[in-house]
């Protein structure tokens, strides 16, 4: 007869010290387990702060030399030892923005198709195909972008854009310039293709969690598929959908190899999306190995720190948006 069975029968009958010992052991095990998981949690936090602080430390020479101007100037002059991060910051944000403008609607469409519209036999193969896309190394996207997509852009898409959108009053300057094919628009589109698998698979997963009775009720009331998607599925899954979008955005902000292939890596600030630019991650990847002065190296590490900050700010904005949405929930 084991203690396990004896205990429920009547703790009074069991020897008191055995019960106490058992409780003690349980407490110890519990405590140990708590330390273990707290350690795991703190480890992430420690790694994050450690990485951020060491980059801040490595970049302190750049920050102390250039001060706030490091964020607002466009110089990137290894000879004159003058560095400003505006061009890479701008390029990072613009390419990520273009990517999200394309990727979010397309991913929404993919997820909706797979959960609501597609015949059941088609759903699993397409869903696995999308997940496979997520596994393609980014350098492959870069090479595809440079050798296949860039010629298409320079011969077809960009001449069309410059001709039809270039003369427009406000948006015009965004689409003016020579048809290089290499530039921020191309980089943004390649990034969009890269992040679509991430966003759409998260969306698909959460769309599947919407209870059928909600959807069926809406259909019963005469809603169209679009109305069900927009008014039932999306509100129900909103926070998870936004989570998925920011997963994709995080990847778009930090993507390096594919971007450096098609972005042009030029430290010029231009309004035109068709012109080459630079991104933080691409600048670091390109220039780190040959940074031959302390201030140069320090500026690149400072750029890394700024990428941290940019990502952090973007994610913080996301969190705020989520909180706002949740607060408005009751008013509707």
């Amino acid at each position, binding site marked *: 007869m084991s203690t396990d069975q004896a205990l429920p029968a009547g703790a009074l009958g069991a020897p008191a010290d055995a019960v106490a010992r058992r409780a003690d052991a349980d407490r110890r095990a519990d405590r140990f387990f708590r330390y273990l998981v707290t350690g795991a949690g703190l480890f992430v936090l420690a790694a994050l702060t450690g990485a951020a602080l060491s980059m801040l430390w490595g970049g302190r020479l750049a920050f102390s030399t250039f001060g706030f101007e490091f964020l607002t100037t466009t110089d990137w*002059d290894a000879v004159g030892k003058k560095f400003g991060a505006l061009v890479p910051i701008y390029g990072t944000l613009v390419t990520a923005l273009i990517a999200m403008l394309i990727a979010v609607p397309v991913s929404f469409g993919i997820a909706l198709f797979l959960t609501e519209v597609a015949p059941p036999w088609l759903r699993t193969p397409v869903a696995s195909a999308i997940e496979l896309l997520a596994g393609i190394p980014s350098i492959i996207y870069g090479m595809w972008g440079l*050798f296949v997509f860039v010629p298409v852009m320079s011969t077809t898409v960009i001449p069309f854009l410059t001709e039809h959108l270039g003369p427009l009053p406000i948006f015009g300057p965004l689409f003016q310039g020579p048809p290089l094919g*290499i530039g921020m628009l191309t980089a943004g589109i390649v990034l969009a293709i890269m992040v679509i698998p991430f966003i759409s698979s998260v969306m698909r997963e959460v769309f599947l969690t919407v209870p059928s009775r909600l959807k069926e009720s809406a259909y019963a009331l005469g809603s169209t598929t679009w109305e069900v998607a927009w008014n039932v599925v999306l509100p129900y899954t909103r926070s998870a959908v936004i989570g998925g979008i920011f997963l994709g955005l995080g990847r778009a902000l930090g993507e390096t190899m594919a971007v450096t292939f098609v972005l042009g890596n*030029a430290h010029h600030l231009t309004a035109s999306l068709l012109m080459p630019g630079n991104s933080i991650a691409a600048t670091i990847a390109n220039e780190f190995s*040959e940074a031959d002065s302390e201030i140069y190296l320090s500026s690149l590490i400072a750029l890394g720190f700024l990428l941290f900050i940019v990502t952090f700010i973007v994610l913080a904005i996301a969190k705020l948006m989520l909180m706002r949405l949740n607060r408005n929930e009751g008013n509707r």
Partner: protein
Amino acid sequence: MLKTFSTRLALAGFIAAGAVSAQAADITGAGATFVYPVMSKWSADYSQTTGNKINYQSIGSGGGIAQIKAGTVDFGSSDKPLDSKELAEAGLGQFPSVIGGVVPVVNIKGIEPGKIHFTGPLLADIFLGKITKWNDPQIVAVNAGVTLPDAMITVVHRSDGSGTTFNWVNYLSKVSPEWKSKIGEGTSVQWPVGVGGKGNEGVAAYVKQIPGSIGYVELAYSLQNKMTYGAVQNAAGKFVQPSRESFQAAAASADWKNAKDFFLIITNAPGEASWPIAATNFILMYKQPKDAARSKNALAFFKWALENGKAQAEALDFVPLPDELVKQIEAYWAAEIKA
């Protein structure tokens, strides 16, 4: 403080890059990508004849300098020579290993390799963004008989720091006062115009992709990729084609005798047949190495390479050093490097 940080970074990079280097008897080196093809050919042949292995990591000239200063390799390699002061501070010695050249390459429909001509100031003005069309009168003036299109010029430069860039902008600085004052020279500079490709292969790929572009790569890359290279006017006023012969002429006309620690950049070399943008690769080693036996092995390798590795270098479109220079280098080893 940052020094120790960068040293540690360099060390970490080295460990990551060179897991193979753990085998103790091997000679390790790191540096310029420019010499990687000839280094790997030399080391393969050398290990066949002697059994000693050379492990060369092509991490770039800046990386090579950082590695040797950190003492993590037996020799460093750089396309940009260090001056005597910097060498003395670090306790390093320096000698040339092989000579190559940088060539302008263009992508203009209907123009054959070697048929388009440039002068130094013309190249500088194109890379400054002052000349923007291929049918600019200044380009047409030196290209009689060549039909140049009314097309935009797109400049392609290196996006990473590089010895190739160093030699290219060093030449532009020598021929254009405006370039010298506005841009200057270094392994990476603030390019006024253009797009940046990573590595020689990146520049080659961009030039091939963008109609009307001009870039600069090492001769071997332009030949392998069947690119349209241009002839350039040298210091003697003659238009010369890039070739081993014209690189050789530049190397031979250079005044190595009076160059302390071989600090000599052979761009814009005198002589009628000289290619104006020839480039030398330099090897850096400690004068008083911590591990004399390893440095001795490294010197034995370079002695073999400089004396017996000429055919391999030529096969890869590099120019081996002239015999006289090799003798001067061996005298330098005997006098300066205690291995």
